[in-house]
Structure formats: C-alpha cells, structure tokens
C-alpha cells in the first residue's frame, strides 16, 4: 500500500502529498474495520434472536433466505431488517428540537466506531498503535452517553427524558468502577498499549491471563460493560414496561436503527476489550502444537464470540434491575471492591522479589 505514496507526492507536491496519502490510507483501513464490524452487528442481532429463541424453546427467525435456499432459512433476516429500516420514514415529533434530534444518533454511533481505531486484532494488525490506547478507549466509551442524553432531551417527551436521565447517571456511575478495573490491568502490564497488555499475558497457558490474578476485576469490568451498553439486566434507560422505550421512544426508521447499531457495536467492543485485557487476546489457551497452529485471529474471534454469548445469555436469564439497585451495585459494591483490589495489588507488587518467588504457584508477579 505504501507504494502509492510517490504517486500522491507527484500529484500534490511533497508538502501536501504525505499527509493526503496518510489520510487516504487511513480511510481505507477504517473502512476495512467498519464494514466487517457492521456485518458482525447485523448478524449479532440474528444470533441474539436465534439464541434467545432456543433458550425459550422457540424457533426464532427462519423464513427469509437467500435465493430461496431452504437451509439458509432466517439468514437473510438481518438484511431484510436493514432494508426495512432504510425504507421507513424518520418521523420528527412536532415539539422536538430538530437539529439535536438528528444529531443524537450520530453522536451515539461515532464514539462506538471511533474506539475501534486502537483495538489490535493480532500483534501486527492494528490501525493506530498508540501508547495511551487504554485511556483513549475510556475516553471514547465515556462519550457515548451524549447521544442518549441529547436524544432524550431533544425528543421533548417525558418518557424519553426520564430514560436519558437514568442512562446518564448509570453510565457515569459504572464508568468509575470500569476505570478502576482497568487501572488494575495497567498495573499488571505496566503499559497502556493494548498490544503490550496482550503480550504481558503470554507465558504458556491460560493461567497467565489476567482473568486469573484479577478475577474480581474481570467480573467487575464485564458487568460494568453490560451496564455501560445499557443492556439487560441494566436496561432501565429503555425499560419497555416502565417508560415505553426510554430515550429512543420517538425515533423511527434509520435514526432508530443507528441507535440500535451503536448499542450492538458497543457490545462487540466491550466483548473485544474483555478478551484482550483479561482473556489473553489472540493467545491460545495452551501454547502447544494443535492450539498454537490455529491463526491468532481465530482465537480472538472465538473469545469475543464467547463474551457476546454471555451478553445474550444474561438477556434471556435475568429480570431487569430496579433503578436504586443498579446504583447500589455500582457505588456500594463495585467501587469498594475495585478500590480494595487496587491497594491489595499494589501491596503485592511492592513485595520484595524473594518473597514473591517463594509463593507457591506464583505465575504472575
């Protein structure tokens, strides 16, 4: 790809050629990430419907196929849904603030996609290999809440506004616990670069993955991730039975679909980050012959799929939390746990080398 650089320099001069070339190259790379991501989102919705149907002893979508092939029954469903969404009218309520109403879905999806810039798929395959990747991810995930709040306010509806308020408080509360859990990860790896974090978990087997020494943090992070994406059992921002559909009650057509896309893209992001930071990323569970021959990206995708399965499983299993219980879980349970764990981890890391070596079965410090 770099062979096109001279062409750009020829066309635009050396001063502008290099930046323009980088721009074009990065645009292509971004598309290479986003298109598979959007496809994955589409089929995640399909997987969700199928898996939940299975858990509830139903069949799920099984009609729409490609070219009438019977055994592909249902696989055309996400495409059909997308076409339907695009065709539908975007209704803007009379009292709504038109500009913000349309801006909100964009603000929701942008950070969900932007966060992918620093996610590594293999040791080499990463768009932006920056040092502060972990911080960047935190920043991007914290921006997502604007879409929800603005949607709630711009709709000029009580239900939407209630949903937005709930969502804002919830996301901010869980961000703290999430951040503290990530602090533990970066203490273990002493790096903010996601590639280095995976490299820090290398060492032969799954016992080296941060999931083992940081098990409580793994749970806190993943549960906070579920809460941050407003998924069940923490979906009080939508809460169909209480506030109709929460912040997006007035949205229809493509505007609604974009919120939907953002939610699922965020789910995949949380699953990916959990895999990278706690489950060893692209590392095989055991570093011996049949396992380490499988390409690393397969392992990563497998781990992501497992974490996504948990998301769907939660949805099928748990009833929705009450709002005060959500707040209680975030502030009174998770934050104390993470704080104590940080202190504990710091204390262990400060132990003298000899004392650490004398621990039986110590793989991590």
């Amino acid at each position, binding site marked *: 790809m770099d062979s096109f650089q001279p062409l750009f320099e020829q066309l635009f001069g050396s001063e502008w050629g290099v930046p323009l070339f980088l721009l074009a190259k990065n645009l292509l790379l971004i598309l290479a990430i986003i298109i598979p991501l959007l496809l994955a989102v589409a089929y995640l919705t399909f997987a969700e419907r199928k898996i939940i149907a299975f858990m509830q002893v139903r069949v799920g979508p099984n009609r729409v196929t490609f070219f009438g092939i019977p055994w592909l029954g249902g696989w055309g469903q996400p495409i059909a849904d997308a076409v339907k969404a695009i065709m539908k009218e975007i209704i803007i309520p009379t009292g709504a603030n038109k500009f913000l109403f349309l801006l909100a879905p964009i603000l929701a999806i942008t950070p969900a996609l932007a966060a992918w810039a620093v996610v590594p798929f293999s040791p080499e395959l990463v768009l932006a290999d920056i040092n502060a990747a972990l911080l960047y991810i935190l920043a991007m995930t914290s921006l997502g809440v604007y879409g929800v709040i603005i949607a709630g306010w711009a709709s000029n509806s009580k239900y939407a506004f209630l949903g937005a308020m709930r969502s804002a*408080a919830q996301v901010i509360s869980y961000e703290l616990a999430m951040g503290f859990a990530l602090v533990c990860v970066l203490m273990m790896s002493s790096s903010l670069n996601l590639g280095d974090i995976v490299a820090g978990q290398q060492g032969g087997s799954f016992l080296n993955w941060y999931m083992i020494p940081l098990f409580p943090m793994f749970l806190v992070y993943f549960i906070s991730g579920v809460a941050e994406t407003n998924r069940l059992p923490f979906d009080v921002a939508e809460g169909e039975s209480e506030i109709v559909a929460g912040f997006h009650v007035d949205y229809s057509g493509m505007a609604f679909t974009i919120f939907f896309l953002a939610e699922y893209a965020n789910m995949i992001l949380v699953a990916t980050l959990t895999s990278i930071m706690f489950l060893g990323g692209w590392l095989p569970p055991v570093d011996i012959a049949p396992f380490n021959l499988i390409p690393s990206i397969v392992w990563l995708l497998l781990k992501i799929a497992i974490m996504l399965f948990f998301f769907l499983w939660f949805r099928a299993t748990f009833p929705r939390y009450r709002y005060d219980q959500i707040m209680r879980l975030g502030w009174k349970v998770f934050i104390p746990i993470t704080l104590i764990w940080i202190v504990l981890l710091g204390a262990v890391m400060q132990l003298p080398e000899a004392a650490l070596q004398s621990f039986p079965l110590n793989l991590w410090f």
Partner: protein
Amino acid sequence: MIFQDFVFYSLASVVIISALGVITLRNPVYSVLLLVLAFVTSSGLWLLLEAEFLAIALVVVYVGAVMVLFLFVVMMLDINLDQMREGFWKWFPFGAILAFIMTVEMSMVLMSKQFSSEIIQTPEYKSVDYSNTKELGRLIYTEYVYVFELAAVILLVAMVAAIAITLRHRTDKKSSNASRQIAVSRNERLKVISMPAEKKE
C-alpha cells in the same frame, strides 16, 4: 509543517467559535454542548503539542463526566432567559470598557519580548515510544507527591461537603433495604408444611 498549521488553525477556529457560542447563544443546552465541543477541540490542540495524556484526560474527565452532569442539570432547569438578560444593555458599556482594557493589557503582556519565539524555544520532538503518561506519573508520585496528596485531600473535602450539605435523613419515605433483601433465606419467606391428603367425600 503546513499540514500541522492547517490542523492547528482549523481546531483553533472551532475552539474560538464554539467558545463565543457558549456565551452568546440563547438556549443553555446549546451553550453546554458547545462547551463540550470546545473541550474536545482543545484536547485536539493538546494532542498537537504531544501532550496525549492531558488531552485524553480532558476528554475523560471533563467531557465524559463533568459536562454530562452539567448537561443533566441544565436540561432540568427552567431558566427564564429574558429575566436574566434584563439590564444587559444598561451595563454593557461598563463591561465593554473593562473588557477592552483587559484585552489591551493582556495583549501588551503576551506580545512582549518575554513570550516571543526567540526566548521561548520550541521543545524538541520526542521519539514515538516516549510515553508522556509515564513521565507524568513519575513526576506526580515523586517530586509532586505533596501537592498530589493535597489535591486528594481537597477532593475529600469536596465529598464531605457535598454529602454534609445534601444528605438529609427523611423519615417519611419508604425504601427497601437491599442488603437485607439479598440476605433473605428461604426459611423466612416460605414454610413447607406437611398436610395429610384429604379424603374425597
């Protein structure tokens, strides 16, 4: 570096326009959103200065948390803007004169020789693997540990103060005790009794 200049001037103009919007727009929600925009673009400017940690911290702390709460409050307020704008034109000349004097003073200071590029050199560019997060961390926990701790104490005071001012123990509200709900055991709620089967008449 023409490209960097281009990025700088576009970000800087966005910052200025959005900052002007913050104080001139009539809708407070727009003002808050423009303030968010100003923060995000300033963070872009800091990135240009190779201060990536500060740039991202600005987004995480201010945009991601502080401004969300701010927006939260502003959206719930019912401000009568006409009332707030009363007396604006009466005081405008006074304010304008003050602002003018301040601008002249500041430009005199900032345009003085002290801050010219001859005295203040451009810092050298660092290599790619230079992590300014690490450097900041090292400074904060060694040389600046005293002020770091003081800042922590100030945050603690803020927390104590906020709780002291807002917490009230209401006696007229009913709420459930979550810890007790969770700790409940089957025996407290359910009693299995054995009953002889009744005969069919």
